[in-house]
């Protein structure tokens, strides 16, 4: 009989019970003829069963109230009160983190790559502080973006347009005011339907009106920064550089016309 040779993929699919009946029979025949491989596959099968058994109790635990889907849907419909403490604590944490790396470039806010580097570092620090925050990634949510726009305008000193990245698949989540060495900045957060998050940070730049867009990489995430109409922007996220560049170009076009 001339059957297709047995592949490693077949063996794995055999362990996972994902072969059709004819192929399954061929694999069994093969294993009967090759006891050394059969022994390895037996180990894999045992390993699979053990993993499932070991982790099964987690799935059987009673669901805590915070993960009650009906309750979550219900609570979403009520107006949210803003817990001040969460924001204050995060801001303090950010100042500590920012202080460690940021002071070196203090006073170097010149129309040069230092400005761009600094913007990128601020955006990356905010990304690492807030994007992984599962409870409160943003302080004011997208559905209240008027409040957010008023707040950031007041603290930053001028209105800051919120770019719409929906065309790239990223939806606006909301934002907050964050501290930098050069004063308050606006931070906007977005995510796509795969849960990937990115942030845009914006603050006034005194030393330059315009700076071209430059790529910047900070702590394993990609970023782009630029200055337009005296406002510095930096976009940062775990997105491939080319894709992020398109998103950054889109954002720049939008804020350019809004400013």
């Amino acid at each position, binding site marked *: 009989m001339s059957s297709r040779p047995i592949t*490693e993929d077949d063996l*794995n699919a055999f362990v996972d019970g994902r072969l059709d009946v004819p192929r399954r029979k061929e694999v069994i025949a093969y294993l009967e003829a090759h006891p050394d491989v059969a022994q390895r596959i037996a180990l894999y099968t045992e390993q699979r069963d053990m993993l499932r058994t070991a*982790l099964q109790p987690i799935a059987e635990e009673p669901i805590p109230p915070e993960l009650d889907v009906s309750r979550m849907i219900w609570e979403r419909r009520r107006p949210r009160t803003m817990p001040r403490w969460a924001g204050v604590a995060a801001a303090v944490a950010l100042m500590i983190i920012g202080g460690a790396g940021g002071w070196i470039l203090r006073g170097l806010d010149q129309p040069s790559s230092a400005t761009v580097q600094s913007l990128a570092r601020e955006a990356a620090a905010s990304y690492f502080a807030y*994007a992984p925050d599962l409870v409160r990634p943003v302080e004011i949510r997208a559905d209240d973006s008027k409040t957010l726009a008023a707040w950031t305008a007041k603290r930053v000193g001028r209105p800051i347009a919120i770019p719409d990245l929906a065309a790239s698949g990223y*939806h606006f989540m909301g934002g907050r005011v964050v501290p930098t060495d050069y004063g308050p900045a606006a931070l906007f957060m977005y995510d796509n339907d795969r*849960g990937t998050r990115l942030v845009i940070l914006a603050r006034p730049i005194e030393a330059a009106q315009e700076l071209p867009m430059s790529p910047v990489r900070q702590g394993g995430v990609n970023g782009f920064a630029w200055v337009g109409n005296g406002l510095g922007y930096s976009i940062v996220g775990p997105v491939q550089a080319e894709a992020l560049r398109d998103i950054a170009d889109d954002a720049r076009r939008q804020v350019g016309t809004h400013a």
Partner: protein
Amino acid sequence: MTADMVRQLEPLVPALRRYARALMRDRSDADDLVQDCLERAIGRWYQRRNEEDPRAWMFTILHNLAMTRLRRQVQRPAHVSIEDVDEASLSCTAPQEDRLRYRDLLSALTELPEEQRTVLLLVTVEDLSYADAAQVLDIPIGTIMSRLSRARERLTRLMSADLRPDAPRLHLRSIK
């Protein structure tokens, strides 16, 4: 329509907690992750592609949130090192004589590279099809298969090293 959302999301919660716990190890971190994932899903429910299987979609969101968070932990390492991993926060209620083997298995699991651990968990524990796992991790099926193969091989090696009474695991790892 709300009822429909509840009906589709609720049954997924136990499995999402299990995957999150296996990745994060810490119970409250894992549940925070699941909560965030559910909130995303509820907010985006009507934006998802028509008739898309919510299971693969939910695992995709959860996985990406977990990676965002773990990347942060690499940036600023957590207090717990891998050697001190608290197996009690993973759950294990096996008979007494098997407990040790289960514990060894879970600790060997933490020694797999993350890309192998995630594939192994999604395929073997969460029963995702290879195609769904590929969708969740955003990689080709061929890559799923090769990572799965390497994960099994490596886990077997780690476990057989543990069977020897005083196997020097740290030493072993430094040789590889």
